[in-house]
């Protein structure tokens, strides 16, 4: 089992970051994310909380040994559940892999909360684990590769989202110029 985490502070108010969430892709930093589909969404009329279930389709080259051992292709799908609660100003995004899930699980959690009136705090954690029902050496190597890829994508995701927010809001929020 590997754990990953990173923190970041975006120089945008919480509501700008949360509006930006839906504009993150396509993104030149994250060209591996090809498709984004909403498969379920509800707005709770009591609490005002919005729950969204999406499927993200990614395309990224895998090393030959991964393809040989685990089959599969460049296409990988992820299920993502987000909650936006305007009353508590809390947004959470949980993601898990659909593809290769018989061999490994990757569970990622993200939160966006206000750090101040003009800043938003981002926390990301992930647990990555090869399933135990396979050859130990292969499991370790596979897990190591998944972790490396996750870390690369997490970095690109953070940089890419910062660009999206800057582009969206730079002309609209002169106090941040």
């Amino acid at each position: 089992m590997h754990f990953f985490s990173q923190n970041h502070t975006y120089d945008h108010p919480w509501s700008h970051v949360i509006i930006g969430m839906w504009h993150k892709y396509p993104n030149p930093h994250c060209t591996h994310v090809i498709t984004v589909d909403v498969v379920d969404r509800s707005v709770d009329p009591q609490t005002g909380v919005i729950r969204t279930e999406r499927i993200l389709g990614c395309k990224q080259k895998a090393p030959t040994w991964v393809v040989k051992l685990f089959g599969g292709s460049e296409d990988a799908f992820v299920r993502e559940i987000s909650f936006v609660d305007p009353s508590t100003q809390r947004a959470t995004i949980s993601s898990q892999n659909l593809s290769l899930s018989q061999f490994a699980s990757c569970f990622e959690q993200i939160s966006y909360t206000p750090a101040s009136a003009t800043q938003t705090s981002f926390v990301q954690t992930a647990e990555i684990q090869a399933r135990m029902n396979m050859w130990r050496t292969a499991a370790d190597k596979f897990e190591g590769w998944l972790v490396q890829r996750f870390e690369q994508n997490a970095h690109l995701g953070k940089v890419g989202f910062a660009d999206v927010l800057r582009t969206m809001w730079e002309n609209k929020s002169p106090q941040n110029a």
Partner: protein
Amino acid sequence: MAHSLSPECTPLKHAYDSCFNTWFESYLQPAVAQNANATPAQRTEYSKKKAEDFETNCGGVWREYKACVQKAVKDRGLSDLLEQARDEHPLKEQPSIPVGPSKT
């Protein structure tokens, strides 16, 4: 806007995303602004009204898009994987905030 996993659903997806984004942008900032002084009853009244607006404005295109994407999910062989994922992590309620690395 990103594409749908099935090209035939992409126009419906874009129409739905646009509808949602317009609604969401009109929803979020007043909802946040009323935190300071709204009573729980006023908050519920606002949420209920905006939930109804969302259904009125986007309900039609949502049902068309949803039918298309459900077929696409099935055609791509993702239905079973999605069901397994939902069983493993139902996520019906908002989870607590993850605890990140300390900033020291």
